[in-house]
């Protein structure tokens, strides 16, 4: 249950898996993303509402063949350069994309968590998305005759999140912006949670939710594991790092050099922290 991130990724993440690393600006599981790069997983289908820097790195490192997403930018900064290079220039190789809206993705995770084959929403109407995304269909209300958008449930092989803490049994506590993390874990066959701290008892916190240990496959103690995202109560968002990422990621060589030095060239997240210096 409580294990190292290295062992968790080695055991639970396989080549060809569908992964969801979730966290909506807050609590993005960067350390787990790095470990997947370190262990050179390939042919992954990665799912995430906002691919963000975490998937920019996985894409640029060549781990990903398909991306399902709804907004692929560097929030407040601009483009996601490795994502763009993969879509526009097939570098390091072609990237299949499956594109939705935020509301659609949230509905898909919720359907996955609920054991339903699909979810529905008032969405996508009049847009060009259904022309290009085959996972947007319609369903008719049997009572009113209204036509609604239907989207299939997302049920990843592995759901991966970062949280504030866990107790020694593996019960996980999360607070602040909750995003779709509960849904991502519950929709997945297996799950990994990195946490800021492991404690004897989980003190009650306003706004907190708890994921019982029995819906989590592995809990890993990785302080700062969301960096440059943050964990409310433990850290603040490293906005300077997000801005700096633009220059690092714009150039293929600069990106590869950075990944080789700070991710591939470090043994674990603690070494990465020292290497990057935060």
């Amino acid at each position, binding site marked *: 249950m409580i294990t190292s991130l290295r062992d968790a990724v080695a055991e639970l993440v396989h080549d060809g898996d569908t992964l969801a690393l979730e966290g909506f600006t*807050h609590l993005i599981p960067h350390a787990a993303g790095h470990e997947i790069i370190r262990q050179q997983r390939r042919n992954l289908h990665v799912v995430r509402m906002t691919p963000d820097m975490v998937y920019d790195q996985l894409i640029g490192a060549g781990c990903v063949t398909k991306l399902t997403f709804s*907004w692929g930018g560097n929030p407040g900064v601009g483009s996601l350069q490795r994502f763009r290079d993969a879509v526009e220039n097939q570098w390091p190789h072609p990237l299949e994309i499956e594109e939705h809206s935020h509301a659609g993705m949230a509905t898909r995770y919720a359907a996955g968590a609920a054991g339903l084959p699909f979810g529905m929403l008032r969405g996508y109407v009049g847009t060009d998305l259904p*022309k290009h995304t085959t996972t947007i269909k319609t369903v008719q209300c049997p009572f009113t005759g209204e036509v609604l958008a239907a989207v299939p449930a997302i049920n990843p092989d592995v759901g991966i999140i970062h949280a504030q803490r866990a107790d020694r049994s593996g019960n996980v506590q999360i607070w*602040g912006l909750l995003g779709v993390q509960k849904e991502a874990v519950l929709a997945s066959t297996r799950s990994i949670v990195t946490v800021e701290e492991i404690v004897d008892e989980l003190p009650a916190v306003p706004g907190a939710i708890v994921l019982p240990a029995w819906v989590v496959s592995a809990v890993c103690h990785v302080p700062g594991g969301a960096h440059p995202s943050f964990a409310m109560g433990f850290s603040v968002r490293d906005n300077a790092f997000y801005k700096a990422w633009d220059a690092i990621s714009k150039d293929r060589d600069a990106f590869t050099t950075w990944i080789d030095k700070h991710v591939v060239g470090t043994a674990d997240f603690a070494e990465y922290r020292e290497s990057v210096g935060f």
Partner: protein
Amino acid sequence: MAEYTTDELMIVNAARQLGALAAAGKSRCFVGIGLPSTAANLARRLYPVEPVLIYESGCIGSKPTRLPLSIGDGELAETSDAVVSVPEIFAYWLQAGRVDIGFLSGAQLDRYANINSTVIGSYESPKTRLPGAGGAPEIAASAGAVMVIMRQSARAFVERCDFRTSFGYGGGKGDRERFGLRGGGPKWVITDLALMEPDPDTCELVVVALHPGITRDQVVAATGWAVRFADDLETTAEPTSGELDTLRRLQPA
């Protein structure tokens, strides 16, 4: 005369509109990060009835003391009346019609206020891959009304969007009703040159006001379709020093 940037000009004009809307009982704003969030936070400080800020990250009634740099800043969660999950914010709040004003922007906008934030060029082989839809399609569908804030240029204000990410008025009047959309659609387009609003009869965007010092020719040159001007074309009031001072105190040091 106060000096100001074009961003400040757009923000102040957006804030004024939000202040008027809040006074009229339309106070719930679904705000993205950037200019809309800044405008809504400015309006909170300038007007007696404060807009209620709702962020897609799940924050309802946020009252940040400083401007958030991302939609998920801790400051937003800490100052909110309620924080809910992302599935809930889209289903129970936006989709259910609890948002009065949504904001949109993009790389391209057409005369019927349809917007592209997905790709320039073809979808399969894009010239430029943009971030994509995010919350836009459902904001466009479900918000009571939509405010567009976007820099104006002939490359951006186009005859036809390369990709329709969010629906304005489609091909013109009646299309929103035909598609069963519940929200009112784009009511205001605020650019760095002018204000545009849909013609009530055709839903085509029409210039209703120019910013101080801007000419019709400049707007025509910055619009990719044969843009029309309202008969009673107005000029927007200069940002006041009070507005600008409040705005600048908002910005992170």
